């Protein structure tokens, strides 16, 4: 018996699982650095988020009588990225709750992988943020490794917000030095602190052709240009804005989420610039110190429209239109 199937009879070696595995590998440097700064508490939070994400994907698929999809590793990626968005001091059950929201409510209830219209990890972070505002904004000081009573401090973004309001200058605001910001020796969500590790992960993803560099470059570039102009060409302030908050984590790992970003080339440009603008406006004029997650979720909602506006030109399409006009 011969097998018949539709062409093509050759296929690339890419698989969904392979892509997700690449993302996990790219996330590992940032995870290692956050464990280095915040101790085993960070690893425990990451493990709880990831474990709960995988378990809730398995259970929700089972309850909905759909096939089991934990093998594609997307739930693992969601769990790790969610934990990266949380302060390392967060009670573990809140992290687990976030994973359940991300996987069950945002992802599986909309049809599973590829169907959710907003990024699951960001939505879970925003829900946790509005539910447990104080726990979600008590940042541990790096290298206070005790498991329960960590010393907390203000995040650089909150200090920068004071600068934006005009109540302090960049020098007076008590910010960590720029090299500390680059290496991640600062308060913040457990995965967002180490800029070097995040950029290394981003370069790996671009080199492996998992993500295109368009969205991260447009996102970070827009924030950079905006802050540079806003501060009256103050390079130090701009550098703090670029390294602070979840900008790099958001731009490299969350705005590039396949399902919730445009597929078209120009759509990616619009998406990145839009994310950058909303982030900048929230940071400078809003009452919140940080705007990356809100900017990404707002742009996520616009993705179908952006894609409609930026459909690639079909080969030969213009000629057909001219002929139609003549006829």
């Amino acid at each position, binding site marked *: 018996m*011969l*097998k*018949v*199937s*539709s*062409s*093509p*009879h*050759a*296929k*690339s070696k*890419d*698989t*969904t699982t*392979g*892509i997700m595995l690449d993302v996990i590998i790219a996330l590992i440097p940032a995870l290692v650095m956050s464990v280095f700064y915040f101790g085993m508490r960070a690893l425990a939070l990451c493990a709880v988020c990831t474990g709960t994400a995988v378990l809730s994907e398995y259970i929700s698929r089972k309850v909905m009588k759909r096939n089991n*999809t934990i093998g*594609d590793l*997307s739930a693992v990626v969601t769990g790790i990225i969610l934990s990266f968005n949380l302060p390392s001091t967060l009670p573990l059950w809140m992290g687990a709750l976030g994973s359940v929201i991300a996987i069950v409510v945002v992802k599986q209830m909309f049809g*599973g*992988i*590829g*169907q959710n219209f907003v990024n699951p990890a960001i939505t879970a972070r925003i829900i946790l943020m509005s539910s447990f505002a104080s726990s979600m904004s008590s940042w541990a000081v790096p290298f206070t490794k005790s498991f329960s009573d960590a010393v907390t401090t203000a995040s650089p973004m909150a200090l920068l917000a004071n600068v934006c309001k005009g109540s302090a200058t960049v020098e007076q605001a008590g910010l960590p030095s720029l090299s500390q910001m680059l290496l991640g020796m600062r308060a913040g969500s457990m995965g967002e602190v180490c800029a070097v590790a995040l950029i290394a992960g981003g370069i790996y993803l671009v080199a492996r052709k998992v993500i295109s560099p368009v969205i991260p470059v447009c996102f970070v570039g827009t924030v950079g240009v905006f802050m540079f102009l806003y501060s009256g060409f103050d390079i130090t302030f701009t550098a703090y804005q670029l390294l602070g908050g979840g900008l790099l984590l958001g731009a490299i790992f969350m705005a590039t989420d*396949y*399902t919730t970003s*445009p*597929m*078209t*080339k120009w759509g990616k440009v619009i998406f990145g610039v839009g994310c950058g603008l909303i982030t900048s406006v929230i940071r400078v004029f809003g009452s919140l110190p940080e705007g990356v997650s809100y900017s990404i979720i707002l742009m996520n909602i616009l993705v179908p429209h952006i894609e409609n506006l930026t*459909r*690639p*030109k*079909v*080969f*030969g*399409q213009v000629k057909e239109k001219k002929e139609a006009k003549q006829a």
Partner: protein
Amino acid sequence: MSRSVTVDGSAVKNPMNVRVPVGIRIQDIIDFCGGYAYDPIKIIAGGPMMGRAIYDTDAPMLKSNNALLAFAEDIAYKTSRDCIRCGKCVAACPMGLMPTNIAKYASNKDVEKLAKSNVMACMECGCCAFSCPSAQPLVQYMSLAKQLLREEGKK
């Protein structure tokens, strides 16, 4: 009327280029090339990207077939998963189409959206399905989409 045909694949005993009359029985070409080295699992009339898998070697060789491939293993078999909207098919399409959207419209039988999708420009080169990490049968969806549009046109 004859044309050159490449006979190749892991199941063929002596792979070679042969000049055959158009319409010759495929089994005759394979016999000329020494028959099978292994039992064939898949035989393709044409190249790996656009050729058609045949189920019977009594079929004739067509004028458009430039190759005859016989494989002892099921090449490039991948389990199909849900689309993750990675956009690799959009980047791969030489005609500037959006294959994953067309596939979605075709499976929903959404003729209205198909009519606007320019699917008729698709030449079924197979680049979209080649690059798809979720192994969606995109070319099959393209054919289905064209069929749906033709049926709609007949009404």
